[in-house]
């Protein structure tokens, strides 16, 4: 699985850094790595994310000027949120994936902003955070089904959860 997942994450991170920024508006620039991980947690296994999320963060940090570790930290909550799927608190897996994406996006941006701030890159009045957060949450939520369904199709035998049938 990791032979596929690791290059896939790199490809998605490359797309996030080289393809999506060509679109002028942030409303067309999803955080693909984050959405992929959130969808992965629900469609396949949150345990696999314990390896994949840090890797995705490393790729993102390497492709940007931020210190290596910022995105790794910021993506960590997605893993924790992913484990909520095991509790079965939401009746639909797709809704759960969207929930993990939305909550993960909020925490991703907050942690990124906090760590960048602590690293000396001051976010004056948190304007940058405010400008990025709402488009980020909405576009990420909208893209989640696009990644969730293909991942769900690959999950046979991948999950070791109590649930045996997909719910969406």
């Amino acid at each position, binding site marked *: 699985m990791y032979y596929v997942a690791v290059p896939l994450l790199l490809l998605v991170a490359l797309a996030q850094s080289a393809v999506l920024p060509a679109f002028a508006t942030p409303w067309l620039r999803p955080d693909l790595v984050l959405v992929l991980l959130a969808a992965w947690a629900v469609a396949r296994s949150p345990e696999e994310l314990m390896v994949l999320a840090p890797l995705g963060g490393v790729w993102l940090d390497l492709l940007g000027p931020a210190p290596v570790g910022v995105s790794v930290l910021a993506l960590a909550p997605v*893993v924790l949120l992913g484990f909520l799927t095991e509790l079965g608190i939401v009746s639909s897996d797709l809704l759960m994936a969207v929930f993990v994406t939305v909550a993960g996006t909020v925490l991703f941006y907050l942690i990124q902003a906090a760590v960048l701030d602590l690293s000396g890159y001051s976010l004056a009045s948190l304007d940058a955070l405010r400008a990025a957060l709402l488009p980020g949450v909405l576009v990420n939520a909208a893209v989640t089904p696009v990644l969730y369904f293909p991942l769900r199709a690959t999950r046979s035998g991948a999950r070791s959860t109590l649930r045996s049938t997909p719910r969406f």
Partner: protein
Amino acid sequence: MTSRLFVWATVVVLLSAAGIKGSQAGLLSPVEGLILRPLAPVQRLLHAVAQPVADFVTNVGRYGDLRAENQRLRTENERLRSENAELQEARHEVQELETLLGVKEGFRQYQPVAARVVGRDPNHLRQVIAIDQGQDAGLREGMVVVGEGGSLVGRVEKVYGDYAFVRLITDHQSSVTALVEGSRVTGVVNGSAEGRLTLDLVPPDTNVAVNANVVTSNLGGNYPDALLIGRVSKVEDDPSRHFKAVQVEPALDFSSLEFVLVLTGFQPRPLGGG
């Protein structure tokens, strides 16, 4: 499972903190450079493929605007054609003046290195682009970057062997000492979270005309003077404020930037500012 998650979270936090400290200290730069070297061509290819698609999608979304802009451009084209006839006559004189002022020579002395834009910071909180030239071509942190036409793009923020990141002037941490052509009013052009430019610290009793060019000033020492930043798009006079609110439209469309020039020969004087 809870204890396993706790151990995992602790390890991630510790490794991230170590990575951040290591990155800031430059300890990871060789590794980062090694990994980025083979990725740069891939980024370049992806960016080249994506740009026309993005332009198309963006333009479809702006159909109404484009119609209006098309009409405006037709009118402007007509006006420019008539102006062109006059300019042809003045061309010879301008060339002489250009040589006289040493504009071209002045620019050449900064030893510009051409670089292709291969990506952008995936972090939405910042306005940073990636270019395919780095230390091997003589780039250093803090160097000034201009567009193909000589308009100001930003400054080099981080450099690897053949790869560098440039912080755009629209980034909210960028600030450039500038002056308004014509009135010679000085101020500081600041980026913003939304990627807009404002000319700040302009006294209320000064005259700033809409459409006037805003260029770099040699005050501050971080940029060569007279690099075009943009033009004044809006001026708000509010007597209750200590300064005028001046908005500046960037001279460049940063989302479609493909090539830049890094002025490797210009030595910024570290007097603060972006």
